[in-house]
């Protein structure tokens, strides 16, 4: 079993008996470098509980946003436990970094981070059940095996269910996780099976499982009025007028606290959210927008033009070879300007959170958050208390897409609830609030140049990137990596950047940076390919021909595999075969190709597109070849993620943009932020290229390449190059 993702962390396990004769195995999976901060094993939470009736309860530790993690992580445990999946119940774990390690829905990290530790936890419990059976039967544990839900001795009629062995198993020594032999891939019974979501039966019955479904005795509802202009401050508001509205209980101002992303505004509290929200109209707030009111998307685009024209260049953040000589010596130089807009996340469940400030001063929250530990820290910091005094229930979420990596709404409801001790408060944002108070995918502008020699070889590559100055945070969604392809695969290269001042909040949107950069880089490489009489897959294969995989890098998870040219080559060849690349297509149709590597996943995609009578793009079919390692853990969830990513990416390419005007977001609801709908769904064919690598995540990497695959298809069709998103049909006129 290949496990090339080295997860240097210590797994702690502890067994205990549970009331009624069951067996619980606790485990903790601290982050690399944080092992010493873990409390003693006695404090650990039960991860796996085997009940005397042979049912098994497994904790799903990570937040579920629709990526399938609440089903997938327990599958890993159940596989190595050799549980009968039908006897497994999954419970959502509370927010607790000491017990569970990272609880994060983001970065497609959960699969690589948990692939080994979750299986080790299951294998440890299985070993203890086998040890208990060996003791009971007076035989060598090595002579035993398991069938789903029971320990057996092959060749004899000895057999006992896990439930029958549970109380004895609790007395067995806990094995060292490193000593456990995990199953061979060929022996998997649960991993690799298409398994429906553990919450799905409750969802189709409309049961209350989302954050906004939280209901508590005496709960009241809050709506929040903030400035439409980012960075504006409050001058005045008519609180009394709002308080006089039907159903309104209170209205009060909340002061800004930028450290925890809390904006200034007015909370309106009512016994029904619609009444609270309606009363906002009576507030007549006056805002001081200051300099930020002059900011606009058009202004930023103009600033990009000026940055390029000034001739002074930008701050160089990647350089190799002698790029000036490469361009001076070039046989041909290509130059183009590419741009993409701000985008919003628009999760279907609008931002919301429920909070109760208890009379004893502790805070309890029901939080739809992709980073509940971060929210717990932020709320504790804001309230000036220790994080363990903020209890955070993790609710299922109606989508995340990166929006819920920011916990501004958690702090906002905490700020409201602290004014009303003993009363639970549910804060809900309207769709308009959601679209106009987002952390947007940053817009960006690229002036790209390529040098080609007389033999048609790409000899130089340069990009002057105009982006935003977002300060010195740990994570910058407006940054372009220095190793952005084709860096390292071309001899002479320079990346420089100019950063614009802004008050527009920005954050990670599904496949952050990649969802924008794939369009620019794969489109301009397509331009180079056409200019040199090639096609893009051919150029990609040539640029990476014979290049060995790069060495491992240190990332968020510790050591992770470096970029692998052979994996790029394999998915590229696969998708060419799937789409019959190079063969004739239907009249009026054309194919386009895109490749992108992100979140450790390799995706090559081909789009078949046409233009309708009004020059609107129509996508007929998408072929996807993906390499996310040796094993697809849950084919149901995996395919669903890819299909969703493809349609999400096509929507971004064809019809989505947030425009900043007068310092505020112009778009406000689905009439002017038109998400994809059912009729635009193309046929989508997906094939997995299984490779000798530990499995990695699928929430994101299938999205980026479909955007240039579409625009490259439209070029093949029309000879017109799309260099700005979303696609403007006037390009094809």
């Amino acid at each position, binding site marked *: 079993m290949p496990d090339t993702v080295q997860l240097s962390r210590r797994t702690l396990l502890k067994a205990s008996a549970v009331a009624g004769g069951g067996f619980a195995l606790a485990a903790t999976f601290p982050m690399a470098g944080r092992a010493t901060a873990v409390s003693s094993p006695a404090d650990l939470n039960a991860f796996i509980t085997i009940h005397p009736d042979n049912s098994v309860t497994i904790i799903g530790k990570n937040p579920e*946003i629709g990526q399938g993690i609440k089903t997938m992580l327990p599958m890993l445990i159940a596989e190595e436990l050799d549980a009968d999946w039908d006897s497994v119940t999954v419970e959502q774990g509370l927010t607790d970094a000491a017990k569970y390690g990272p609880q994060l829905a983001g970065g497609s990290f959960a699969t690589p981070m948990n692939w080994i530790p979750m299986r080790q936890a299951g294998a440890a419990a299985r070993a203890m059940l086998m040890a208990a059976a060996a003791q009971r039967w007076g035989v060598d544990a090595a002579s035993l095996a398991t069938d789903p839900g029971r320990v057996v001795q092959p060749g004899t009629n000895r057999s006992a269910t896990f439930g029958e062995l549970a109380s004895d198993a609790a007395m067995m020594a806990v094995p060292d996780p490193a000593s456990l032999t995990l199953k061979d891939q060929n022996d998997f019974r649960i991993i690799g099976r298409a398994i429906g979501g553990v919450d*799905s039966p409750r969802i189709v019955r409309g049961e209350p499982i989302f954050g906004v479904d939280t209901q508590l005795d005496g709960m009241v509802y809050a709506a929040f009025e903030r400035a439409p202009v980012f960075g504006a401050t409050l001058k005045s508001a008519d609180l009394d007028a709002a308080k006089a509205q039907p159903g309104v209980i209170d209205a009060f101002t909340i002061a800004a606290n930028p450290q925890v992303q809390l904006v200034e505004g007015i909370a309106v509290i009512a016994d029904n959210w619609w009444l609270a929200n309606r009363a906002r109209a009576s507030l007549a707030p006056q805002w001081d927008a200051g300099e930020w009111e002059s900011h606009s998307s058009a202004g930023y685009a103009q600033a990009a033009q000026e940055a390029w024209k000034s001739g002074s260049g930008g701050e160089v953040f990647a350089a190799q070879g002698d790029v000036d000589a490469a361009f001076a010596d070039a046989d041909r130089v290509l130059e183009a300007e590419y741009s993409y807009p701000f985008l919003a996340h628009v999760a279907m469940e609008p931002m919301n959170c429920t909070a109760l400030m208890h009379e004893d001063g502790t805070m309890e929250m029901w939080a739809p958050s992709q980073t509940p530990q971060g929210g717990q820290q932020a709320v504790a910091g804001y309230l000036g208390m220790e994080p363990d005094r903020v209890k955070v229930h993790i609710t299922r979420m109606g989508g995340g897409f990166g929006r819920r990596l920011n916990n501004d709404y958690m702090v906002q409801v905490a700020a409201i609830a602290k004014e009303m001790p003993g009363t639970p408060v549910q804060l809900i944002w309207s769709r308009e609030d959601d679209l106009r108070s987002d952390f947007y995918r940053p817009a960006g502008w690229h002036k790209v140049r390529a040098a080609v020699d007389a033999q048609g070889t790409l000899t130089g590559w340069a990009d002057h990137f105009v982006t935003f100055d977002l300060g010195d945070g740990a994570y910058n969604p407006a940054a372009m990596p220095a190793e952005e392809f084709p860096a390292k695969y071309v001899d002479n290269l320079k990346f420089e950047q100019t950063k614009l001042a802004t008050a527009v909040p920005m954050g990670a949107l599904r496949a952050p940076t990649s969802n924008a950069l794939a369009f620019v880089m794969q489109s301009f490489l397509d331009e180079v390919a056409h200019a040199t009489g090639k096609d893009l897959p051919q150029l990609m294969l040539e640029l990476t021909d014979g290049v060995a995989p790069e060495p491992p890098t240190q990332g968020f998870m510790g050591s992770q595999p470096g970029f692998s040219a052979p994996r790029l080559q394999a998915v590229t060849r696969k998708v060419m075969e799937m789409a019959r690349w190079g063969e004739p297509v239907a009249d009026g149709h054309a194919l386009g190709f895109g490749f992108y590597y992100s979140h450790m996943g390799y995706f090559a995609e081909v789009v078949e597109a046409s233009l309708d009578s009004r020059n609107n793009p129509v996508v007929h079919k998408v072929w996807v070849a993906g390499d996310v390692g040796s094993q697809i853990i849950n084919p149901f969830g995996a395919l*669903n993620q890819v299909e969703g990513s493809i349609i999400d990416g096509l929507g971004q390419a064809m019809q989505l943009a947030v425009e900043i005007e007068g310092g505020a977001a112009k778009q406000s609801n689905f009439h002017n932020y038109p998400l994809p709908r059912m009729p635009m769904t193309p046929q989508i064919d997906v094939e997995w290229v299984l490779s000798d690598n530990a499995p990695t995540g699928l929430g994101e990497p299938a999205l980026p390449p479909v955007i240039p695959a579409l625009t490259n298809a439209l070029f093949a069709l029309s000879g017109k190059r799309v260099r700005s998103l979303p696609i403007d049909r006037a390009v094809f006129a």
Partner: protein
Amino acid sequence: MAYRVTINGETREIDAPGDMPLLWALRNELGMVGTKFGCGIGMCGACTVHVDGQAARSCSLPLSAVGEKQVSTVEALEQTPVGQALQEAWLEDDVMQCGYCQAGQLMNATALLTNNPNPSDGEIDAAMQGNICRCACYKRIHGAIAKVARDGETVDA
């Protein structure tokens, strides 16, 4: 003022302004939270209920306009043969990702198949295009509806 509304066959009294959308009467006055808030302007379909058997967007239906009409919600969906068949198809095909829009999708699909038991692909697209799925599970939603339509046809034959 108080309104008397029949929901899932039960008459409920709701003391709220007449212009309050049915959605917020269901969610905050009656605690029936299966019906979801998505946009508030009838553009996404997450709040779909049935009013006298027809799909209606409860975010845009004032309480005062319900009158004597029969309202049914996702909580009662499994009591109808078509609704139950769709719920089962949704689970067989593991249609959903986040699942938030699915109550509205199921309610809309049930109204479609109740009115037109054997829709064409184009009719499914047309009937369902008012329901947004941000996770874009459209291929599976469409497939599950088509499957129930096919199975219904087989049973009838």
